[in-house]
């Protein structure tokens, strides 16, 4: 798994081989993410709570994290805080995709350095994919 992940990481510039970590506790959403993103050619890992998200993050070094905020065990804000504390994880771009959308939630997430905050129900699944591609491109440009 480590090998696959590092190969994928090297190919970060090529968005279609990037490895994505989706943190999503809702099964319906999780399946939709997997279906669509795999179809688009991405590698997809799904975590269904905060603890699992951090585990998978440390083991796989994904190119991007799609993070839900309301999750059991450890919520998205906690995950964000923890990953910003770790040197190896700090620079992985994060897109928040949540159905929380109060201004304070958005400000709080942005203060923790997320690439984008998206209210899930306000975008189509195609717009979600576009945001993923946009974040990967931006990260690839920064890496150069």
């Amino acid at each position, binding site marked *: 798994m480590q090998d696959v992940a590092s190969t994928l990481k090297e190919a970060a510039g090529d968005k279609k081989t990037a490895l994505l970590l989706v943190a999503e506790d*809702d099964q*319906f*959403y999780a399946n*939709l993410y997997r*279906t*669509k993103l795999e*179809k688009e050619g991405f590698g997809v890992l799904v975590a269904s709570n905060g603890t699992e998200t951090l585990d998978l993050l440390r083991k796989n070094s994904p190119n991007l994290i799609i993070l839900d905020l*309301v999750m059991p065990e450890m919520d998205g804000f906690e995950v964000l805080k923890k990953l910003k504390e770790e040197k190896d994880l700090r620079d992985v771009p994060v897109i928040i995709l*949540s*159905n*929380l*959308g*109060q*201004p304070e*939630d958005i400000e709080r997430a942005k203060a923790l350095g997320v690439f984008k905050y998206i*209210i*899930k*129900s*306000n975008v*189509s*699944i*195609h717009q*979600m994919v576009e945001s993923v591609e946009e974040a990967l491109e931006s990260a690839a440009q920064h890496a150069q």
Partner: protein
Amino acid sequence: MDFPSIACDLSGKERWMVLAFASVSDAIFVADTHGNMLFMNPKAVTLSGWSEDESIGRPVGDIVKFSIDDDIQTVLSSSAYAPPESPQEFTGRISLVKKDGSKNPIKGRALPFSEKDGTRAGTLILLSDATIEHRLIQAKDHFLSIVAHQLRTPLGSARWCMDLLLSGDFGELSREARSAIINLHASNQQMVELVNDLLDMAKFNRTGGVEEPAIVDVAEVVEGIFRFLELDAQRRRVVFGKRIDPELPKLFVPRRRFYEVVRNIVSNAVKYSKPGGHVLVEVKKIDAMCRLSVKDEGIGIPIDEQQNIFSKFFRASNAVRSQTEGSGLGLAVVKLFVEAWGGRVFFESIEGKGTTFHIELPLSQSREKIIEGNNSLT
């Protein structure tokens, strides 16, 4: 009951007034014409944490300090004190910063007063403790945030699922299946928008809009809205047109809100148009105002229902017949925001012929004035 020191000079007849001042539950501060503290009632002493002895004769700004969100802001500062020309309201997320630095949520107002001959005499500042109100608002926010989250989750995943069905990700659909899913998608979207409208309304009641104003190009906004509504318009065979004064100065409003406000009006125009109808957006300068008008050739609003059109949850009878979905919140939200920005919204309509909505917003408005306008809302 201890009489405040100032009462020593008063006659017996006048002492009942002082007794009243001493007994009311509001904090009362009085500043003289130079902006120095002249009088504080006992509640003002407990609310501010400053004793009467320390305060009398000191600049009011030393004692009355407000904090909005987290910025400590001296509303009446010692150096630049000018009593307000007209009464001033303190509402929204405002706290009084006490002597020890702690904050106490308040609401209240400042009232300038004058001598018999009309010369300014000073300012009366009345503040009441709003701790409980603020707590209730927080509880309401928390509740709404959870409700919105719980409603959005199934609506959002259903939407994505239908997105995939419609884009052929699950294989080709029959024409009937496709058309059924398009309808499902539309009613699902209606629910998503209802949740957003409800949140908008609730958010507005709390803070008067949180988004910071920015410099906004009206022409760009109109372009964006036309693009957004293109599919809807095509489906109803509605033709868009626009006439925008190229000389028009930019507006200073919260961008996303402004976009939503205009989109709401234009999307109504499309929704209630007859097939083949035109929707014309015209933007021009009228005196110091920017007027944005959206004209349609649609069903119009019955004359006896026109007075209710901006009421929450109201929908005209012919609108309900023509479009079964719709929350009746859109225009109420539009009105709230436009008025908060110092503007107005009005319309002309003839049933069966069409409606024109006008939004007027001040052009030369300074940044300060707009922000003040936002803060003065409850």
